């Protein structure tokens, strides 16, 4: 087995035994061969990683010598961080995001930055100013989005693990499309200090890894209260690695019937139902339940999240950071800078958000959206009375073709139909590989849990992963 094939935990052990250099050269070789095809990592230059102080010798700590790639919307001190957008080109943050401080503090090495949809607006990584990312399992297909660069990099063995961010499914859907594990923690579990904001009442940072063990290992470091993020939760952080147990006896697992309706690809449905059968065989109790307001989730999201986005992206005006187009008046400078700097999808969402917040439309759209969001949260609260975990597909289809949905924004938005509700309700959710299509594309299932109960998700995911054991399969690169 080559070093680039190792998981995060194995990489750590390998670096401890063999030294970091052997791991680094294996990854560099892999990246040089494959990244030009995949476009998963951005601004990657070999010389940055050879003999530079960045990599001189990793500090000690529980993640010593573990290379981790970071989505391009998480600030890394001294490294250009641009949300894959022209408007932030050249922007070098003067500080580390909270998660970067924590990873560095544990000895991990920031090893590359991941391509993404511009400002995380997208489900396919086609809206990036760096050009599209390709799916390692089929280069003609998208890796999902918006953390598609993170998922493709991990799936292809360019890095053992990566960070993504998830506002409506941006960790989980690409994890499913690329055959890796992606965990969106509970809203408030991980500090967003240093995450460039999209939808502030939804955004969470989380790990994208080769297996469940690595996700648990990273969560141990990512989670926790941070006074610099006022939405950060004070709840205790458990040792998530203690949840890596094969044990689902008596676990009540709900299948929400709204997630198994029209539009669901038959191969996706089959693999998720087979997973439910495995759980049943292992002693879990499988129930069909209802989340009746699910059909409204996408509509709520595309009002409330774009409203928040239009407000958050107001700061990109050519004054404090990024690029500016010079003009004679201030207003013209704003307008030209934003015209030039934002891509098509960013403009679409900013305009939609501006509209739903504008005088005369606020009540009909934004306020009504927030009220229906309450009903969706209540669906989940009711579900937790009878089940411990919800099991569904992560996405209604396997990875789609590049270009297939780009000209039809609504079709693209609907590909997030199964991931958006967890963000609306703020609950944790994990995508786990659960099989392959006949044509060899990976499939993922989603487990959703009670707020701050990532432990049960990790235990349930670990149990299934160990039972069906498919994480060893590699993309044909």
């Amino acid at each position: 087995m080559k070093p680039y094939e190792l998981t995060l935990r194995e990489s750590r052990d390998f670096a401890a035994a063999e030294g970091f250099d052997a791991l680094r050269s294996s990854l560099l070789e892999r990246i040089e061969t494959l990244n030009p095809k995949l476009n998963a990592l951005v601004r990657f230059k070999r010389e940055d990683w050879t003999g530079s102080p960045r990599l001189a010798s990793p500090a000690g700590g529980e993640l010593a010598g573990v290379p981790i790639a970071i989505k391009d919307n998480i600030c890394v001190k001294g490294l250009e961080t641009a949300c894959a957008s022209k408007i932030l080109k050249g922007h070098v943050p003067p500080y580390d995001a909270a998660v970067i401080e924590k990873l560095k503090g544990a000895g991990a090495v920031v090893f590359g930055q991941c391509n993404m949809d511009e400002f995380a607006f997208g489900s396919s990584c086609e809206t990036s100013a760096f050009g599209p990312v390709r799916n390692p399992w089929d280069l003609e297909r998208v890796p999902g989005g918006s953390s598609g660069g993170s998922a493709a990099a991990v799936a292809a063995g360019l890095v053992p693990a990566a960070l993504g961010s998830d506002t409506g499914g941006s960790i989980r859907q690409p994890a499913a499309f690329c055959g890796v594990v992606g965990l969106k923690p509970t809203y408030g579990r991980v500090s967003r200090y240093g995450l460039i904001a999209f939808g502030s009442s939804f955004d969470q940072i989380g790990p994208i890894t080769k297996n469940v063990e690595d996700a648990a290992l990273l969560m141990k470091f990512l989670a926790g209260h941070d006074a610099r993020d006022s939405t950060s939760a004070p709840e205790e952080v458990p040792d998530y690695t203690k949840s890596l147990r094969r044990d689902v006896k008596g676990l009540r697992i709900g299948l929400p019937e709204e997630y198994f309706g029209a539009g669901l690809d038959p191969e996706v449905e089959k693999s998720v139902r087979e997973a439910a059968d495995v759980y049943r065989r292992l002693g879990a109790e499988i129930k069909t339940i209802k989340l009746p307001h699910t059909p409204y989730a996408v509509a709520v999201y595309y009002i409330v999240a774009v409203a928040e986005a239009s407000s958050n992206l107001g700061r990109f005006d050519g004054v404090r950071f990024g690029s500016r187009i010079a003009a004679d008046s201030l207003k013209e400078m704003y307008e030209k800078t934003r015209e030039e700097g934002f891509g098509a999808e960013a403009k679409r969402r900013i305009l939609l958000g501006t509209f739903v917040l504008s005088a005369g439309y606020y009540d009909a759209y934004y306020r009504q959206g927030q009220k229906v969001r309450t009903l969706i949260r209540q669906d989940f609260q009711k579900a937790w009375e009878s089940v411990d975990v919800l099991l569904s597909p992560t996405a209604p289809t396997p990875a789609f073709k590049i270009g297939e949905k780009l000209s039809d924004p609504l079709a693209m938005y609907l590909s997030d139909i199964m991931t958006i509700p967890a963000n609306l309700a703020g609950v944790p959710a994990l995508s786990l590989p659960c099989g392959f299509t006949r044509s060899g594309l990976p499939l993922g299932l989603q487990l959703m849990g009670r707020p701050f109960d990532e432990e049960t998700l990790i235990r349930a995911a670990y149990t299934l992963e160990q039972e069906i054991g498919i994480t060893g399969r590699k993309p044909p690169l």
Partner: protein
Amino acid sequence: MSFEIEKVAELARIRLTPDEKNKLQSDLGAILGYVEKLKSVDTSQVSETSHVMDLTNVFREDKVLPSDVSAAVLRAAPDRDGKFFRVPKTVER
């Protein structure tokens, strides 16, 4: 659903080309058509969710702490003058 794309673009401070206007007018029309379904939900007895956590008014102690980031922050600005961000003239004489 009709809306004035030019007015919204002006509120958002984004200039659009004529092609962009047409495309966005139709895209946003389709999206707003889709979200119309929310109007059929009875929410007369429902309060709004602006936030999913039980936290309210998270305050920190009002204490002066050292901060030396201004030079680094200003370095990132497209145009500056000493310790100020510089922008085009905003007030006409």
